[in-house]
């Protein structure tokens, strides 16, 4: 018989393998980047061969895909959607806007650094990133999952107060339910 630790390890490997090959994406079409999602999914690039597939609601999704710049107005919804997703869950920041604001770096109305508000696991660089870049981003996420390093959700839980403080700075009327995972 294996001891608990070893068996846990094996279970982890199997689980991570399954998670890695089945990525259900909730594409939050916030910005212009959403236009890159259809080519990624359809015949030419066919993300489904990697196990990537669209999910209809946050309850079913594994990955929150923030496609492009995020305005203050949509921020609240994005946070809500993220919090409604089931563990384990990952966030992919898509395009330069999510990294540093990109071409909206001096806009009064957009989020510059997504990582301050949501725990981003993988960034996809570019403005716009082409479908090849998106696929590579997914591949990167898969790699991190397999290695067990895609633990953004844990990070969010651990540093919830910090995230909350940042979020509340942006959103003036905070009426969201408490995050109680």
């Amino acid at each position: 018989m294996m001891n608990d630790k070893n068996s846990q390890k094996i279970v982890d490997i199997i689980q991570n393998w399954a998670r890695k090959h089945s990525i259900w994406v909730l594409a939050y079409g916030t910005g212009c980047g959403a236009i890159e999602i259809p080519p990624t999914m359809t015949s030419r690039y066919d993300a489904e061969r990697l196990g990537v597939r669209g999910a209809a609601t946050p309850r079913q999704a594994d990955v929150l895909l923030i496609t492009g710049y995020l305005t203050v107005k949509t921020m609240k919804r994005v946070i809500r959607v993220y919090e409604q997703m089931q563990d384990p869950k990952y966030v992919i920041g898509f395009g330069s806007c999510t990294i540093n604001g990109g071409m909206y770096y001096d806009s009064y109305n957009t989020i510059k650094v997504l990582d301050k508000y949501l725990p981003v696991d993988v960034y996809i660089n570019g403005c716009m990133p082409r479908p090849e870049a998106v696929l590579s981003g997914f591949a990167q996420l898969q790699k991190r999952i397999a290695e067990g390093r895609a633990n953004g959700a844990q990070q969010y839980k651990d540093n919830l107060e910090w995230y909350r403080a940042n979020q509340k700075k942006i959103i003036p009327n905070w009426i969201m339910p408490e995050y109680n995972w």
Partner: protein
Amino acid sequence: MEMIHIIFLIFLGGAVLTYFAGKVSKVLQDIFFLLSVLVPAYLFFANVGIGKEVTLTLGGITLVWGVNHFSWLFSLIVLGLGSMAAIYAIGYMKGKERKGYFYFNFILSIMAMMGILLSLDLVSFFVFWEIMTWSSYLMTVYNGHETQRIGIKYFVFSAIGAYAMLMAIVIVHHVAGSFMIGSMINFYPNMSLSLQIWIPILFLMAFGVKAALMPLHVWAPDAYSNAPMAYTSVFSGALSKMGIYGMVIVLVTMINQIPQGFWFREVIAWLGGITAVLGTLWAIKQDDAKKLLAYSSVAQLGYIIVGIAIGTELGMLAGLFLAVMHALFKGTLFMVTGAVEKQTGTTNFTEVTGLIRKMPWTFFAALFSIIALAGIPPLGGFVGKWMLYEALITSNHYLLVIVIFFSSTAAFLYCYKFLFGFFLGQEEKEWAHVKEAPVVMLVPMIIMSVLMFVLGTFPGLILKPINSGLVDLGYIDTFKHLWNTSIIFNAWGDHVVLQPILYYIIAIFVFFALFLTWKGHKTTRYVTTKDISSSGEVPAEDENLTFSVGFMQPFLRAVAPAMRRQIDKYYTGIADGLESLFEFMRRIYTGNGQTYAVYVIVFVVVVLLFKSVLF
């Protein structure tokens, strides 16, 4: 003094006493009410032997009352459901006005139904029939002003039916020389052909009205939905069965004796089928629980009528079993509606939502009855539906079985609508204060739910009495060696064995319920219905996202052509036409003395002119 007389005296005295006890004390009134329903029920089942007959002579007419297996079965429905509804009514009527009125009519209705079942002669049958009609009519108009049209509609239809029956009764008395039901049946083969056809038609008019057979059903939805719910459970569950009871007697004992009987039964079966379809479609459209259940009652009665009209052993068993089941589940459902009405003050699906966590026991009862209504195993409704289909298929009613199947599949839509409308959906702040119904209302509902469950696996418990009743009516003993309490057979020998099915269902359900609940696997947790994934938006406290207006609209669009015409409209047209005719009649009396004098002269002249014709 015979026991049957004592029972009726208790009913009658109890009704009057209960009415006046209200002037003394409310509690005393409740106690009297319960006693005057439960004591006769006990006395009947404990002391009245099957086959017993007692007589009473009134106005030169011998009234004979007695019990046979067949009427015993219906007595079971009436007194069983009546007792349950009586207990329920104590809770339901608490704090309502006109309690004495309600109790009085309730007891009289029960008495009248028992009277109908026990009558062996046509006069007392008719007397009790009319008492039943007016006591239920008084219940229909219990809610006052707005219901008066509805009440009159009900009473007019009942009266037309009852008078048709009265006509048949006196004709039978004329030709057979006796008011006894038995002698009517014995004499039937000797009647002339036109009487052989007309007598059953006249009787069926009366029974068809009570059993809400299309096209005589238009009173039913309104009347059912406007009576107090505690009574409607009896109204729909038991009172409508009186029509079935009469129909069985007419169809089996009379019509089967003549060659034209086949067409009779076909026509009635088809009418029953159409009733079922129309009732179902209109039920789907309703937004009010009472109306929905009322139309659903019409549809369910349609199934029962189909079962008894096709007239094979299996069909009769199916029809009568469904009658028992319908009493159980529709009684419970009306009780559920009453409980919701009492706790929230409304029965409209667009207003009430999400009561499941507030009224869990009521939901439990509603769930069981809905499953039974939909005919889904392992509850009792399935057994009835199964036998009905098998009876239809094995007796070569290929198209009728499709009609019935369509209606009972479409019934899922309103079944779901009922459960969803009241209990599921978002939990609203407006209904946060709602409490579970009082225990006295819950107990009857739960008892009946459990009964439905038991009958689903052991239908033989009730099929045996039904079988004895059918044997009394002259059927061969269907309860052959193969049948036992939990196996049902069709005419081709195919069967369903209910007991292992129940075990499998329970095993599978429990296994997966455990799997879903088992914390060791992965955790699940409860979140409120406000926490739903609606595009990341957080619904406000008083915001109701429940989908309840225009429910089932796609389906209704698909069947819209069938629902374009309402039979009710035709009747209203006839009634309006008659009213104008009456207005014309009224104008004959002009109020002018000269005209009247002219009338006299005209009368004399006309009579003199035509005296050779007249004299």
